[in-house]
């Protein structure tokens, strides 16, 4: 017994990787584990799904239109006889890619602006007025104008898919960073007056390392929350734009697009609305749980409780 405690202590006295602690805590959060598991499943499904379920999502089989669930088409077909499962997998690729990249973009922009505004006094005014400006802009008309202006140019420059993808990511990212920036700025303002930051200054730690070592880790939880909400927001904005006919072209499925196309057949075939809707909500939910668990795991005060 004593030997065990002794060896455990010796083990402990060596600095162990903090990520091990983070994983230990993360794995005790059941919701987070389930969320991460489901998210991984969706990710793998949309990446490797097309190899397993090899039906072409664009293949029109007019004789099999509006079919219900069957072995040949597990989730049925649409009004042109295209396989819903194949389209769901294909649409997931686009939706997930747009969601994740747009979230990352808005997170990076929001955190950067928030930290700079909070930490550098003379940047606070200009950057916050910029944030207010973006918040005051009517977003949907702005998005429409941006897409109208740049769609054709980007399409001809990068091809229809890549061009629209970049445009969507940029447009969603650039219009959703403001909340993050405001929250981060508020937290940085209160953190930089704390004594541990003063202690770091008295040690002679340069400003950029104070931000990276002392400030950023402490504003991680609001950033995590913004990130999880950001994915949901990006997927939903993308759906809204597709719904207005300004997102991806109509033969190019995304979850939002599928939802939009299925609305006309709501009475006839409610299943078609259900599947993309379920995919969107479950993905968003799993990301939320994951973010929750990650936030707890990254906070040493909650860890181990």
């Amino acid at each position, binding site marked *: 017994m004593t030997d065990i405690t002794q060896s455990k202590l010796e083990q402990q006295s060596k*600095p*162990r990787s903090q990520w091990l602690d983070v994983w230990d805590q993360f794995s005790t959060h059941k919701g987070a584990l389930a969320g991460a598991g489901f998210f991984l499943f969706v990710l793998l499904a949309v990446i490797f799904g097309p190899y397993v379920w090899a039906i072409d999502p664009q293949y029109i089989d007019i004789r099999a239109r509006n079919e219900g669930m069957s072995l040949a088409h597990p989730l049925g077909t649409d009004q042109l006889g295209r396989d819903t499962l194949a389209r769901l997998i294909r649409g997931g690729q686009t939706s997930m890619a747009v969601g994740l990249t747009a979230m990352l973009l808005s997170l990076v922009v929001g955190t950067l602006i928030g930290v700079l505004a909070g930490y550098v006094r003379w940047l606070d005014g200009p950057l916050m007025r910029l944030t207010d400006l973006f918040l005051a802009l009517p977003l949907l008309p702005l998005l429409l104008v941006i897409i109208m202006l740049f769609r054709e140019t980007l399409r001809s420059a990068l091809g229809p898919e890549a061009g629209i993808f970049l445009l969507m990511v940029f447009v969603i990212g650039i219009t959703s960073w403001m909340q993050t920036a405001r929250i981060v700025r508020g937290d940085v303002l209160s953190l930089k007056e*704390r004594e541990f930051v003063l*202690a770091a200054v008295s040690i002679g730690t340069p400003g950029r390392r104070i931000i990276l070592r002392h400030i950023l*880790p402490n504003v991680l939880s609001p950033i995590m929350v913004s990130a999880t909400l950001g994915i949901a927001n990006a997927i939903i904005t993308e759906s809204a734009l597709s719904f207005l006919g300004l997102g991806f072209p109509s033969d190019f499925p995304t979850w939002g697009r599928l939802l939009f196309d299925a609305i006309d057949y709501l009475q006839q075939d409610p299943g078609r609305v259900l599947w993309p809707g379920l995919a969107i909500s479950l993905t968003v939910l799993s990301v939320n749980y994951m973010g929750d668990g990650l936030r707890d795991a990254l*906070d040493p005060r909650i860890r181990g409780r």
Partner: protein
Amino acid sequence: MSPQIEQEASQPLVEVNSLKVYFPIRSGVFRRHSGNVRAVDNVSFSIGHGETMGLVGESGCGKTTAGRAILRLVPITDGTIKFRGKDVASASPEGMRKMRPQMQMIFQDPQASLNPRMTVASIIAEPIKEHQNLGRSETIERVQELMDAVGLNRDFANRYPHEFSGGQKQRIGIARALALNPDLIVCDEPIAALDVSIQAQVVNLLADLQSSRKLSFLFISHDLGMVRHIADRVAVMYLGQIVELADRDDLYANPSHPYTEALLSAVPEADPEYERSRRRILLTGDVPSPSNPPTGCNFCNRCPKAFDRCFRDEPALKEISEGHLAACHLFDNS
């Protein structure tokens, strides 16, 4: 003795000369500069090698600001601070960074002065990482030495600050301050947030470290009993200015300035016999605002011994007996 060492020994470690720290007050729509809070107003003192200078005074009198100004943690309005002959107030950022390892600070609130997301080992290792090029294993070794020196168990290295008691947290702060072998440590009320039994431990730890490492302390406190225990010389501050500065025994035995007298009369006595016969000097009124100090002596509106001149002229800090300085017109012979 080589001439250089001799010069160093004769020269005080820190020499503060007419230090002023004003915080601007901005008001109105255009945020115009409409006045100053004179947190530290014309303060001069020096700290010798291996000496402990006590800085006492009531809340808001500028003790902490004076201590922070020495490390240039607040912008300095005017005056010079010579550290080993080099001016801190006008040093370039790069020059300042080179001087930082020689002077460190221990903070009042041990909870707030430690980053809650860093382990004890990484907190203590931060100054080493910033200033010394040590390998990973050498850094760990150094951190463990420091933990031994302040009486922390080595096995606590991977824990986080919230897992410790107040006294242990303060020990972590002390270990961080010691990491670079500084010459001067500014102790900003290091014991005010601790309970009495722990206070004694921490103060004794500081005293032990001082004798083993030849440290100089600027010990900021409002606990006169503790200052008497640890300080060699004591400066009393009131409203941003030093009103009296003397050797510890001299100051406690013969307080000269009326404010010091009143302050010392408030120290409770442990012996109930003495306590019953203790006479307290109760001051009337409140401390004036540091943004609008009275004309003449800062203390004139509360001083029991004030006379007409106190309301006109500001008294200068001057020597009234050997090594005993006071800023009061009562000691003017002219």
